[in-house]
């Protein structure tokens, strides 16, 4: 079973994402900011990360930059999932090494479509 780390400071978003991902037969874990997510990845590198942009302590962009420097940190597929919906943010995220980008709000169909796109389902 593939492991997904959901990184978002909103407990509601984490809950919604977990419910959808559980239904898609992923093993889901959660982190509420970039620093905690980085610690989680250092302990066990997931197959994919659903990543918010704006978070306290460490934002998603900085997390991604540091993740890719970790041993095995280039392996996880990273899907940004954020309210930032302008082309500049999207381009910046993709340039930084994200694999896909979801603009909130999202639903199961969007999540499924993006995960299919990066070969996770």
């Amino acid at each position, binding site marked *: 079973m593939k492991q997904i780390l959901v990184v978002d400071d909103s407990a509601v978003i984490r809950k919604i994402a977990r419910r959808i991902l559980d239904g898609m037969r992923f093993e889901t874990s959660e982190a509420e900011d970039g620093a905690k997510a980085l610690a989680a990845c250092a302990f066990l590198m997931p197959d994919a990360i659903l990543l918010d942009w704006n978070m306290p302590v460490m934002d998603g962009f900085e997390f991604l930059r540091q993740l890719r420097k970790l041993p095995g940190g280039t392996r996880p597929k990273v899907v940004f999932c954020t309210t930032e919906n302008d082309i500049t943010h999207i381009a910046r995220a993709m340039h930084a090494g994200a694999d896909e980008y979801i603009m909130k709000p999202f639903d199961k169909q969007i999540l499924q*479509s993006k995960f*299919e796109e990066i070969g996770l389902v």
Partner: protein
Amino acid sequence: MISAYASLRTYLKNAAGIVLDADREYMAESRLAPLVRKFDVSSVDALLARLNTSNDPRLRQDVIEAMTTNETYFFRDRAPFDMFENLVLPALLEQRAEERAIRVWCAGCSTGQEPYSLAMLLDANARRLAGWRVEILATDISTAALDSARQGSYNQFEVQRGLPVSQLLRYFVHEGSQWRLAEHLRARVDFRELNMMSDFSALGPFDLVFCRNILIYFDQATKIDVLRRVANVCRPDAFLVLGAAETLVGLGNAWKPHAIHRGVNIRAA
């Protein structure tokens, strides 16, 4: 006396070939409810009574549109588009090497995501297609869907269903809450209103037809008839793509499945 629902079923069958099961009255009620207010009548029954007695073309069109589904998204089911790029396009590049022209028909194009997905793939293959003329004709029975398709403007949900973000960045412009497809791709698609029950013999010839999730509305005889008439507007070595859950089983002998590639069909000899 014929019930209002029975008369609706007769109307849909005669006007658009649409077969509505006898036990779907609840669906008709819910789908036609918005038209009750629009046409200022007291109930769905009253709406259907007016449908029977008036020749109001707007009402007749709106009822058909309300009873059909416009569900679609970019690169829907993905496999047909991979097959287009990897099998159909290379084959047509060989088959049409002399005339250097390809004509594609997207029947039942709804709000345009299917023909625009093909237009994006053609753009991505621009180098192979240099010097070629590729036409995409996209038809639908719904004028509302076609109006939307011509705009090429989609909301945030629509551009995230099936569309890779790389394509979004490459081909769309963010305009307020909408995302608008680039002009050069919109210009590639010719949208036209078409009822599949009408004579479409003048539209051909085509090299590829996408006819996905339309046949589900028709009865067996109509499906066979439509597939035969589609074959008649296609070149002898043309390709036909049906919906993911649709097969040719029991649907006449105009087309047959491709020997190797499931999901693509070719003209039967």
